[in-house]
């Protein structure tokens, strides 16, 4: 829980949630890892959102039974368009349909955008010139990549680093895009990306497999300031607590941290 005195200009805009359900049609699919994929939906009337916000998804069966879940928005705002990247939860109720069942032309309902705390708008005055540190655990990378995409689209030059913790190579989401984004750090929209494999590394990866450590989140030498003006951490609750301990060790005060946790500590049905 965080300091509530820090408000930003986006609060008023997002105070009223797009309050009704809208029909959404699947128009595109991209596989992201062996157990996740991106779904692109055409949603007439969707007016936009901020990077980091969520959308509620409602699936309804032919007999009227319905189930709802929240997902992070996977792209910066485009009118009439919503994208989510969904990780398969074994024995889940909604994610198997979204990751394995749904086909182009199929429909569902969406509502949103939702949330106004875990957001980054390029030009946010409370971030100033940055830098910004993004720390992802597993599929927690999704809203952070949306932030990177928005930053690139806006030509925002805030120095930014993504530290992405994942189990092994087959769990990597957005691999080619992250590689391109970090290939030439002098190119506009580029960001340093550190992949932290916890169990298995791909051939030639310089860092041995181990959990996120203090060295992984230390600032790149090019940063003008050793501490980021803002840190976003997204992942499971255990990951967020671990990363927060490391950030405290590096010297970050709580008011620079924004965190988002997902998932259940047990089996989420």
């Amino acid at each position, binding site marked *: *829980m965080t300091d509530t005195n820090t408000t930003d200009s986006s609060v008023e805009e997002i105070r009223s*949630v797009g309050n009704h359900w809208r*029909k959404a049609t699947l128009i595109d699919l991209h596989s992201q890892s062996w157990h996740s994929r991106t779904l692109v939906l055409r949603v007439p009337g969707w007016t936009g959102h901020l990077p980091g916000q969520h959308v509620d998804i409602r699936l309804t069966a032919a007999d009227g039974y319905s189930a709802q879940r929240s997902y992070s928005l996977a792209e910066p705002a485009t009118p009439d368009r919503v994208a989510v990247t969904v990780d398969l939860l074994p024995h889940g109720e909604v994610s198997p349909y979204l990751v394995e069942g749904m*086909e182009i032309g199929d429909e569902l*309902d969406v509502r949103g955008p939702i949330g106004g705390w875990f957001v980054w708008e390029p030009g946010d005055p409370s971030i100033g010139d940055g830098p910004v540190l993004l720390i992802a655990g597993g599929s927690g990378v999704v809203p952070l990549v949306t932030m990177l995409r928005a930053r690139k689209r806006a030509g925002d030059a805030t120095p930014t680093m993504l530290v992405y913790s994942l189990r092994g190579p087959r769990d990597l989401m957005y691999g080619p895009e992250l590689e391109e984004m970090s290939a030439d750090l002098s190119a506009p929209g580029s960001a340093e990306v550190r992949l932290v494999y916890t169990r298995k590394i791909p051939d030639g990866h310089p860092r041995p497999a181990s959990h996120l450590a203090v060295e992984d989140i230390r600032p790149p030498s090019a940063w003008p300031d050793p501490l980021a003006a803002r840190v976003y951490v997204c992942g499971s609750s255990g990951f967020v607590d671990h990363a*927060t301990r490391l950030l405290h060790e590096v010297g970050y005060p*709580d008011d620079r*941290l924004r965190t988002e946790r997902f998932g259940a500590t047990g*089996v989420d049905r």
Partner: protein
Amino acid sequence: MVTISRGFFGHHDSRAVDLPPGQHLTNGFPVLTAGPTQLISTEVWSFTITPEIGDPRRWSWEEMMALPSEEINVDIHCVTRWTKLGTHWRGVALDTFFEDIATDNEYAMVHSYGGYTTNLPLEDLVGGKAWIVYEYEGEPLQVEHGGPARLLVPHLYFWKSAKWVKGITMQRFDEPGFWEGFGYHNYGNPWREERYAGD
């Protein structure tokens, strides 16, 4: 308007017949927190009620433990759509804390260690509807679930049940707390599905 999703059947969990609309069951206990977990020892923990007139009333951990406690067996509903059935807590009813408090104000702002806030009408905190709890399933409340002590207001969405609770300030006027200021519903009744502002 409801859209049928071709090929979706759902789980039709037979235990889930009496859930609030839009909720599903979880067997785990998911954690949702706006910021870092707060580490507060019982030595420094205290709970303070601040009325509009007179001095604030403060209870240390030992003073709270000396108050009559009760077992609470309730279902809890999170706005992120999970419901957990039959959770067991131990704590002190807010009625007990409010016995000596004189207030004419109808609104309360709950404050937590770390700066989190949430607003409720006073009538939702008294009358056997809310507690300060410090045990969960027979064990001391774990820090990620708000230990050493949190508010428990099970008839509202769980963001109202503030973790690491530190005090309540009485207010003449209603004001939004943390999530209420970020587009979530001001009251949060799960049975009326009051998730977001305007619901």
